[in-house]
């Protein structure tokens, strides 16, 4: 079984031998623009005979990048008369609260958004039947004008898909390729902008993503691979490659989602089900919350201003404080970090690739926390400490009247404070006390800042996985297969047609189970979960109400109105503390998730074996607080289980540097994770 995560710089491969439970990892450079080169290179580096592989699971950033770089396809839209501009008008928002500059280019040019006579009302009745001749004329015209994908977006299609279904049938008959997306198929949920945007983005991604995945699959098969090829979705579950080609919008956050899935498994195994993960990249710090072993899902996200994707996604909060974030002093004399970033190219000043403004990484270099002679990643041979010092002096030290090292400490303290703020806020917004949580850093630089998160947020411990750099690839191997479905019901509980509700639930189960049946892989269990979005009449915010409904032998037991009411009262009380007297309960949407649980592997197989090496390989001076400390440097991967290292110390491995600050102790647990906590007696 193979997991592959393609990142901006590296392609990570995680190979699990299902026979003996052993795992191996590999890292190869990502190839651009076609990432499939690095993908195949990485896989074949670990497995010479592709026919031995049963499953390949891929976390991809192909969709994310196409969205962020606006490199999707030229698409056309056919929509209801009067609604051509919904995609461009958004929900009447603006890019930033302060400063009114900024315009917006929708992904579908107004020239290629065409209206046709048709109208469905909110109750599902059809006021104007769809004019199929107008639909065909529009489709032909869009194809003639060079559109390579098309989206059909009709008003109230969530309530009755009939007009849309007729239109999409007519278009599929004449459209020159497979790339036809339709709003009631992608997201049969009320709210036209969110549904239209998600559907249009699906069309926008389809040629690019399905082309990429086709190339990969063809190449894998060409190499003898005969197993199942699957893709990680933004919700943290995996889907078959043909599903991904039809609904590429579900891959918008595929890469980061896999990382969070792995984090959840690693930390739960280690005994810490409540965790905040922090992925520190070049330009950002991505925070995600896992409570009770469950990662948080958000119903929608904005990839960029006006580009809303409404499919369940692992909730990730991003702040602009990555390793490449630039430190600067404003006109009022206050030190700031970001949002401007040097990214990974040109990157920090110490990279010597042209940037002259100091970054967070430069501060780590100047303070001895990163070894300048052995930069991680292996792209550069050494780092330019003098240049980093000069930049810090010029842009931070002089304006604040600080010497180089105090200026560098200042940069780290402000950056740490912002990261800590993000952690506090994601937990507060969810109503959790962050002190209950463990912190798990991953990505290249996160483990340098773990100690600071303990001090700043009051978190009890940090857990650094044995291979932080390949967390996402590991997540690919762990993830369950999951399909999410939504259907707007829009009914009062008192007048609910339970038969209609049951038939929607049944069709979701049937579709989900069919996908599991078709998958060429084993499942330990199959589950179907249902949730209703509910509120009292007059409220706009809905509460997610879990509905415990039995599915026996694939048949859904119909829920009763009393059951729905009781479930709502329980969920509402849990959220708001009390019920609304005489309130009328309303159901907005049904959400179903059908999951096939895949076998997990024992993380202990990754742990170090034998006596290992517990002595430092070197020492070097590292700056903490006000002064330099002679700091022991260990080779992290040789430290044995149970070994304890007292700070100050640095643990190095090829792709990560772990910093243990004075007053903290790092312990290697039985999985090879390093658990960092205050030393005995100092807590």
């Amino acid at each position, binding site marked *: 079984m193979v997991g592959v995560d393609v990142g901006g710089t590296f392609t990570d491969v995680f190979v699990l031998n299902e026979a003996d439970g052993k795992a191996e990892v590999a890292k190869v450079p990502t190839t651009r623009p076609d990432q499939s080169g690095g993908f195949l290179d990485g896989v074949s580096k670990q497995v010479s005979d592709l026919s031995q592989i049963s499953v390949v699971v891929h976390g991809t950033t192909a969709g994310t990048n196409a969205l962020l770089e606006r490199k999707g396809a030229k698409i056309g839209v056919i929509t209801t008369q*009067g*609604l*051509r501009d*919904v995609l*461009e*008008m*958004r*929900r*009447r*928002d*603006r*890019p*930033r*609260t*302060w*400063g*009114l*500059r*900024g*315009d*917006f280019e929708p992904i579908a040019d*107004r*020239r290629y958004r065409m209206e046709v006579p048709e*109208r469905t*009302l*909110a109750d599902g009745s059809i*006021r104007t039947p769809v004019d199929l001749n107008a639909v065909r004329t529009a489709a032909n015209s869009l194809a003639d004008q060079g559109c390579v994908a098309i989206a059909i977006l009709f*008003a109230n299609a*969530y*309530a009755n898909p009939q007009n849309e279904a007729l239109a999409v049938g007519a278009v599929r008959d004449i459209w020159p390729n497979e790339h036809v997306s339709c709003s009631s198929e992608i997201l049969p949920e*009320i*709210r*036209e*902008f969110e549904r239209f945007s998600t559907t249009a983005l699906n069309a926008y991604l389809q040629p690019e993503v399905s082309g990429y995945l086709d190339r990969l699959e063809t190449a894998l098969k060409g190499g003898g691979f005969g197993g199942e090829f699957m893709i990680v979705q933004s919700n943290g579950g995996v889907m078959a490659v043909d599903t991904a080609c039809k609904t590429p919008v579900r891959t918008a956050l595929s890469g980061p989602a896999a990382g969070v899935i792995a984090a959840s498994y690693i930390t739960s195994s280690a005994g810490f089900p409540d965790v905040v993960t922090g992925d520190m990249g070049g330009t950002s710090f991505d925070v995600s919350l896992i409570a009770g072993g469950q990662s948080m899902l958000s119903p929608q996200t904005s990839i960029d201003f006006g580009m809303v994707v409404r499919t369940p996604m692992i909730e990730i909060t991003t702040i602009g404080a990555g390793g490449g974030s630039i430190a600067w002093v404003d*006109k*009022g*004399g*206050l*030190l*700031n970090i970001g949002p401007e970033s040097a990214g990974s190219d040109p990157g920090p000043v110490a990279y010597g690739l042209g940037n002259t403004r100091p970054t967070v990484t430069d501060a780590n270099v100047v303070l001895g926390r990163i070894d300048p002679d052995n930069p991680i990643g292996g792209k550069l041979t050494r780092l330019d400490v003098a240049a980093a010092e000069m930049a810090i002096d010029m842009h931070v030290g002089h304006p*604040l009247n*600080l010497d180089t090292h105090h200026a560098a*400490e*200042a940069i780290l*303290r*402000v950056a740490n*404070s*912002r990261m800590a*703020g993000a952690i*506090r*806020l994601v937990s*507060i*917004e969810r109503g959790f006390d962050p002190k209950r949580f463990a912190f798990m850093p991953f990505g290249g630089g996160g483990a340098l800042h773990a100690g600071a998160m303990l001090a700043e947020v009051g978190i009890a411990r940090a857990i650094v996985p044995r291979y932080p750099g390949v967390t996402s690839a590991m997540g690919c191997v762990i993830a369950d297969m999951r399909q999410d479905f939504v259907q707007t019901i*829009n009914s009062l509980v008192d007048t609910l047609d339970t038969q209609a509700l049951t038939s929607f639930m049944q069709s979701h189960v049937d579709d989900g189970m069919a996908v599991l049946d078709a998958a060429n892989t084993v499942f330990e269990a199959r589950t179907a979960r249902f949730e209703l979005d509910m509120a009292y009449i007059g*409220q*706009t*915010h809905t509460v997610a109400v879990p509905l415990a409904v039995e599915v026996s032998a694939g048949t859904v037991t119909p829920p009763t109105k009393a059951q729905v009411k009781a479930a709502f009262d329980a969920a509402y009380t849990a959220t*708001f503390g009390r019920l*609304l*007297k005489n309130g009328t309960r309303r159901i907005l949407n049904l959400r179903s998730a059908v999951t096939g649980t895949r076998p997990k592997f024992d993380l202990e197989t990754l742990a170090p074996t034998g006596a290992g090496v517990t002595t430092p390989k070197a020492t070097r001076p590292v700056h903490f607080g006000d002064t330099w400390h002679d700091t022991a440097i260990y080779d992290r991967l040789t430290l044995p289980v149970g070994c304890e290292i007292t700070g100050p110390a640095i643990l190095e491995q090829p792709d990560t540097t772990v910093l243990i600050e004075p007053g903290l102790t790092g312990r290697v647990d039985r999985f090879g994770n390093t658990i960092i906590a205050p030393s005995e007696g100092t807590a």
Partner: protein
Amino acid sequence: MTQIDPITLAVLAGRMEQIADEMDATLFRAAFNPIIAEAHDASHGLYHAISGDTLVQGKSGLPIFVGVMSFAVQAVIEKAAADGDLADGDIYIFNDAHIGGTHLSDMRLVRPYFRDGKLFCYLASVGHWHDVGGNVPGNYNPAATEVFQEAFVLPPVKLARAGEINQDIIDILLRNTRLPQSAMGDLNGQLGALDLGVKRMDELLDEYGADTVEAALEALSHRAEALMRAELQGLPDGRWEATDYLDNDGITDEPLAIKVAVEIADDRMLLDFTGSAPQCAGPVNIALPTTVATAYVAIKHIFPALPANAGVMRPIEVRVPENSMLSCEFPAPTGGYTETILRMIDVIFSALAKAAPERIVANAYGTINALSIAGKRSDGRPWVMFSFYGGGHGGSMACDGLNHGNAPISTATIPPMEILESVYPVMFKQWALRPDSAGSGKHRGGLGARYEIEVLEENGAEAFLFGERGRFAPKGVAGGGDAAMNVFSYATDTGWAQPPLASKMRGIKLRQGQSVILETPGGGGYGPAAERAPKDVARDVARGLITAQHADKTYGNVWREVAP
């Protein structure tokens, strides 16, 4: 005074900002009413113990509150001084807009924060409640001539004395709203936010000590002032004027002037509103605190990086004559304050555009267009569809204006059409951009919108509109053109009609199948139309954002020779 090192200062700046952000997050999560929960019409912050000046404010609250909250705190400081009974655990509550700014829907809670028995600072929370009594549900009464017709008026009173909640006050409040459940939910949320603020301040002071935090607050205020002075020094010295008009006050059809003279001398600025219209009968007056807060909003839009700290306003003088509609006296109605402050922002932008056009965005659409359509269903149940509508933003040196944005004083989004259609008996025949509505320019304004709404209910309906910009167009800057004006039309048995007061009207009778059409203004243009790249004009024509005739008239016909 303790000296503070620059590192601790930067860290404390972030920590305190976060306390306010966490208070915001707490209320948004707990609030019952969607105006707070979804539109984030609320704000929290820390305020100076003696002056009431804003020290720190949350980033996610409504822009207009950033400047106005310190007036609420000042009102409490005066009240407490007069009564001489300020104690730890007290919480004051009030909605009086004449002393606290904005309008009566905004319920303000102010809580003194004590450290070691000594007053350290104030914490405050403001949130827009769903209903606070008055003649009209939701408190938007376009015909009000006194505040008493808008809502009940609560002056600053103690909701809690030394930690003990006074249930009498809550009982009075809940008897004076049509939605007591919602009001109680919001009140609890605001109290929860203040509790959290106290807890976080305790932790912060335990960690850093009161002296250090106090020194940081002092230093941050100085730095905010220094930042503002540095920005002002970057502007040329001189005096620039601009005048614009409100259509009318909803009672008498007379235009109302809003005039500003902006004077910059070195690192100081004067905003002089002398020459603006006197206090009027209708609800478009604003109280002085609102005027000062609006000046802050305008300035922060020009310099977005400025902190939410009173130091920013120290180099700025806001001069408003007495008996002005910008400094109205109790009990003049203020419910329509949004229209007036939008026009204030417009004239500040227009005046400063003459000094430093590169920094200024042309006028946005300039009206919130509060449109209600209401009636009774066949089973007798009443329904009211109430919403604000969007329009175009102004062009700038950087780019064209945004199409269909929200008002500069707000960050609220518009409800989805499908939600409105599912809850109310209406159908949107059109929800579209309005071609030719943008002001022309090198960078044109953003487009306004055209909403056509048909009544489906067999009993018919009545429509109410409170809007502006029906007589005076949003202005371009730096030679840019003006945008199209607001146009509201409603169907009658003899054809389309328009309100006598342009954009304000009550009780428009509609039968089943009849419609209203709201065409909102675009934004003003930036720079002369002659400087617009012909290919951009050609592209706009190809996209149907401007018509060919409009392009020929405004930009000449060079565009016809280029490929879009």
